[in-house]
């Protein structure tokens, strides 16, 4: 049981950590001052949520959050590949934010009923944060998704590009059945179904078209430690200062 649970916690924590880092790159460079601030806050929330998850893992016998987050190599990370992709232009960052946060909010909503108490508690606690993240994402997508030809075209292109990676969020894990039977988590299949309904309902209010999922091959592997070439350089950056003097406290 612990193995399945740890798998779940690691992939969630790694997703939040890596996307939080990516989104933080926009700080001071956003498209509008107010949006710069909003996006930074949500990146901070993500890093904070990953810390909360690593702290639960520590209670289950894993190493402390700083060690786990800042010293592993890419092949030891279980995040989906979607979150490690470079930021590119704001259209992609927004689409990723929308696709990922919709899934994350639904995942935590499901976890409010988890039989694993620490996770259920965390899910209840951060509900408001996630509510804001999805309000933010949905509002932007609805606005830019039907504003000008340029904005809809940009969003459509990013949506088409991101979709195979987004499906990678729901990559099945070998021990998932245990989580379902013990009532810890309803599983990725159930999550993906809810996610798709939600994504469809927002996209249908725009001029965007959701790519036909049957024709898409999901980008899998992230959950097993297989990553794009973009992850390791990001991890090197994250640990650059630590590595100067591994004995030091910063």
């Amino acid at each position, binding site marked *: 049981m612990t193995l399945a649970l740890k798998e779940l916690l690691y992939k969630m924590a790694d997703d939040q950590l890596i996307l939080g880092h990516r989104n*933080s790159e926009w*700080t*001071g460079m956003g*498209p509008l001052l107010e949006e710069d601030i909003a996006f930074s806050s949500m990146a*901070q929330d993500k*890093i*904070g949520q990953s810390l909360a998850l690593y702290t639960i893992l520590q209670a289950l016998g894993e190493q402390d959050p700083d060690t786990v987050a800042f010293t592993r190599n890419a092949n030891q990370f279980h995040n989906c590949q979607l979150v490690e992709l470079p930021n590119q232009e704001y259209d992609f960052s927004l689409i990723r934010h929308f696709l990922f946060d919709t899934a994350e909010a639904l995942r935590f909503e499901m976890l409010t009923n988890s039989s694993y108490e620490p996770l259920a508690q965390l899910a209840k606690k951060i509900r408001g944060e996630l509510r804001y993240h999805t309000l933010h994402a949905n509002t932007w997508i609805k606005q830019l998704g039907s504003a000008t030809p340029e904005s809809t075209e940009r969003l459509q292109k990013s949506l088409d590009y991101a979709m195979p990676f987004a499906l990678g969020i729901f990559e099945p894990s070998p021990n998932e059945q245990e989580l379902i039977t013990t009532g810890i988590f309803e599983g990725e299949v159930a999550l993906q179904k809810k996610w798709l309904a939600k994504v469809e309902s927002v996209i249908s209010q725009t001029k965007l078209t959701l790519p036909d999922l049957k024709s898409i091959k999901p980008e899998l592997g992230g959950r097993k430690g297989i990553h794009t070439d973009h992850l390791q350089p990001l991890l090197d950056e994250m640990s650059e200062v630590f590595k100067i003097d591994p004995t*030091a406290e*910063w």
Partner: protein
Amino acid sequence: MYGGGNTFEGIKTDSIASEDPILLAAFEARIERGEKIEPTDWMPQLYRKQLIRMIEQHAHSEIIGALPEGTWITRAPGFKRKMSLMAKVQDEVGHAQLLYSAAETLGKPREKMIEDLINGKSKYSNIFNYPTFTWADCCFISWLVDAGAIVNQLANAKGSYGPYCRALDRICAEESFHLKYGHHCVIYLASGTAVQKQMFQEALNRWWPPMMHFFGPADKISAHTEVLMRWKVKMGTNDEMRNQFLDMYVPKIWELGFTIPDPNLKKDTETGKWNYTEPDWEEFKRVINGDGPCNKERLEVRRIAEERGKWVRDALKTSRQAYVSPLA
């Protein structure tokens, strides 16, 4: 964060002579009573012009000031530092947001100010034209540049223009987090390993000259500073601010075992004033005029951010019939 040394335009004080003497007297009496000026009040053209200039420069310094520390945002060591630095750099952007609004109440649209920043028409604090080579440079800014900014901002918060004071009250409250965070980082470096200590000492050596420049050259008291001080636009001389900073922070730097790279730095116990080697004002001028190590990069990053964000803003813009500035 912001330093003194803001450049006020050469003023022809005789422009005041063309103002309505009754309105001018009422305006000056209000300031004399310690009451704030609000956006809808009558004010002399010169007051409006100089305030826009000062608040705008302050706002630019915040948005550009997000860049040198932002250099380390993906590399902050560990969860605690990462969260703090993200929030701190975010605050700088937030301060710019607040200050542009305050300047807007005087009638200059935000986009116009941003345009003037990028095309080099208006200035920002010189110190952000220097590079942050290491994590310790980033810590120096968080602690000491922000400390210097607080000295200035606390003084300016007692100024006469309501919207600027309100913005500064918020900003000073947030800066106290920056200062504490920065000091916390430096305490860890000071009490850490030899590598860490050396790292901060080197940062201090690099940043001390720009830190001394930060408050601007010694003021020559002229008719123009006199009127700006009477109107509570300028709240203290550059030398006063510099002295106050040295008084508060030199002992704290020494306490941590670091050496300030100025053999002449010493407090005169009789006058209470600090003596120091005269900063190189030629370099200050050179950097302000665009020839510093990072001027080009800072403006280029800002320009690229603007250009990349253009399609987002264009997509959602609706035509407004008339420009209204924010209320307060």
